[in-house]
């Protein structure tokens, strides 16, 4: 059974909505800046969504006195765009909502905890009620009016890829006809300090795939796709989700293996499942975080699969940061447009290739290219590696 992508929605540090995001790429406008969302001792660049919670609530016509985690608010923006874009009538068939997040409502929990820590009778309960990962998903589902299959995936940085995969399989196994899938994560002190304690944040603007790369920059945002079975499609889809794979590398709790075994296995399995020959993959959206180990192992895995005939490739992380649980939601939406409009995205801050692998990414925005198939990677903590393959649809 074939799975079609009929809607996309994105909010990120470079814009609200798919159009604004593409415009930012076109004009090479990245979203990095100082942390403004909360007070912090850390001085590192981050890619924040440039709206306050109050502004987002207004945009969504939500009551301003109600408390929502930023994770839920960002998710609502992107999921709403995706659903509207698809023109799917949610009452016409079995529609599900599968969202992913790595921190859930931590942006509010950390406010609660400061007061709670002083006196455990203190702290506003409405700021801890959204702590769990399921909260943002239920808020978004309720906002969209979806009551069917609703659930949440959390596998760190590959979360959204796994949400997309679950959605596709639920359609194939006849549990659903259509599903909104993706992820959302708000920037918070907890995550920023977590990555800082791991010493993988670059104090400068990150440089994915460059030989001088020294770490990642964090970002926030949300991205969703609408997936549908063929029989429910009423308009020309963007593309097809033709392959997907999830594999645990079982190498280290946080680091990737130097030879990129997990990356190799997940890409290879996704390609095999689709039946697409390697040579017709025209673009790879890299996980490309900018950490020394990720980019090296991902590059090695790509060389192992494609040999000397490596497709066009790039990482968007220097534009939008690493958005963790949202990253493959956002980047899958970019990948869908890559297939649909023949777009390849610029890899900012690239100067010198990595010595061992020599891969040279795309450095300027191009569109109207012939892009038949796009491979998109996301690799996370816990050894979770996932790859998705999007393919153009010419025959429906």
């Amino acid at each position, binding site marked *: 059974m074939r799975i079609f992508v009929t809607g996309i929605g994105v909010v990120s540090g470079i814009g609200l909505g798919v159009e604004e995001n593409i415009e930012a790429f076109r004009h090479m406008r990245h979203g990095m800046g100082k942390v403004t969302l909360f007070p*912090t*001792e*850390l001085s590192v660049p981050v890619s924040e969504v440039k709206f306050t919670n109050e502004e987002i609530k207004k945009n969504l016509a939500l009551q301003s006195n109600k408390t929502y985690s930023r994770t839920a608010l960002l998710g609502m923006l992107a999921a709403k765009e995706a659903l509207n874009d698809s023109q799917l009538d949610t009452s016409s068939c079995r529609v599900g909502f599968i969202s992913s997040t*790595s921190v859930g409502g931590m942006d509010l*929990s*950390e406010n609660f*905890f400061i007061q*709670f*820590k002083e006196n*455990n*009778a203190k702290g506003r*309960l409405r700021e*801890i*009620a959204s*702590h*769990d*990962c*399921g909260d943002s*998903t*239920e808020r978004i*589902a309720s906002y969209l009016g979806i*009551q*069917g*299959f*609703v*659930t*949440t*995936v*959390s*596998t*760190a940085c590959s979360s959204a890829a796994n949400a997309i995969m*679950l959605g596709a*399989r*639920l359609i194939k*196994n006849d*549990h659903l006809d259509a599903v909104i899938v993706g992820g959302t994560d708000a920037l918070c*002190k*907890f995550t920023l*300090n*977590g990555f*800082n*304690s*791991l010493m993988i944040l670059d104090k400068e603007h990150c440089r994915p795939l460059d030989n001088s790369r020294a770490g990642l920059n964090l970002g926030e945002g949300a991205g969703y796709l609408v997936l549908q079975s063929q029989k429910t499609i009423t308009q020309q889809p963007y593309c097809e989700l033709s392959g997907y794979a*999830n*594999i*645990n*590398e*079982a*190498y*280290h*709790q*946080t680091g990737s293996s130097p030879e990129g*075994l*997990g990356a190799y*296995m997940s890409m290879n399995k996704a390609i095999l499942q689709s039946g697409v020959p390697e040579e017709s993959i025209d673009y790879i959206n890299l996980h490309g975080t900018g950490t020394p180990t990720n980019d090296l192992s991902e590059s090695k895995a790509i060389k192992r699969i494609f040999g000397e005939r490596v497709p066009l490739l790039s990482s968007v992380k220097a534009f939008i940061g690493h958005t963790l649980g949202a990253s493959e939601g956002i980047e899958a939406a970019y990948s869908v447009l890559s297939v649909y409009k023949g777009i390849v995205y610029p890899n900012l801050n690239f100067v010198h290739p990595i010595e061992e692998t020599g891969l040279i990414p795309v450095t300027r925005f191009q569109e109207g290219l012939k892009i038949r198939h796009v491979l998109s990677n996301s690799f*996370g*903590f*816990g*050894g*979770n590696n996932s790859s998705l393959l999007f393919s153009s649809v010419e025959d429906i």
Partner: protein
Amino acid sequence: MMQKCYINSVASIHPEENEGCSLVHACEPDYKMIITNAGLRRRMSRIIKMGVACALESMKHYSSSQIDAVITATGLGCLSDTEKFMNALIDNEERMLNPTPFIQSTPNTIGGQIALLCQIHAYNVTYTHRGFSFETALIDAMMRINEGDEHVLVGAMEEINETSHLIMKRMGLLKGVKTGEGAQFFVIGNESDENNPQLKGVEIFMTLGSEELLEKKINEFLAFYGLNKEDVDCLMTGKNGHQRQDVIYVNIENRLFPNAFYSTFKNTCGEYQTASAFAVWKATKMLNEDGMIKNVLIYNHYNNINHSLILISKDI
């Protein structure tokens, strides 16, 4: 044609003695005997130890290369590590933080540790959605078997600590309710030599607000698996002592299943997001031990928002 899904192996770490308590802790084994990697074990928080040990126990008759998928579920994830990192962050004013509690605060830590310890290079995913966490894991496991997997490891774990207990109390969620914790793991297979119980079906739905709608859902669910209400020998419900919410279960018992045998599980394991994993463990045990029971239906709801149905049957 759906593949059959046999529950071929089970393991559980759950509370045992708990009369009159408002908070029940799982009765934990001696982890040294189960998690033999001392370095890893020392860094593990309680939920990680419970989950990993339980998974290892359930897999002890399998080699790692036989396991095609590792699917884990947790409603609140690794609370103690989250709290530890949050405390350090505030106390040290964001300086010189130990990364271990941060690394171990992510909900997929247990799934990752299982893969790492057993070297399982396979599909690995974690669901974390309140009263749907474990149910989603089961649905995924059934789909994996249907897609060709032979052995799928699926399980859930939850830890309760003083902080989460206190917060739930302040929220007024514990009126008459005993909170609990535990871990259960299962190896689901596409074949069984011993006519083991089968995981037949799982269904989840959000707030319905109407009893008629709930009854309709249950009837449709049973009909999908070719069963009538009378075929349900045992109805196992998630009664937790919360008066208003338990009424929903009582009504279902009386109106739909007047002749079934009634069972509960939260009286033992307490209330928590993935308590239904303990129900599946209990139902499997019941089917393995009692030759007369054929179909067990588990109906659970979490705060009357997440409703789930799990059907476990045995061919007689």
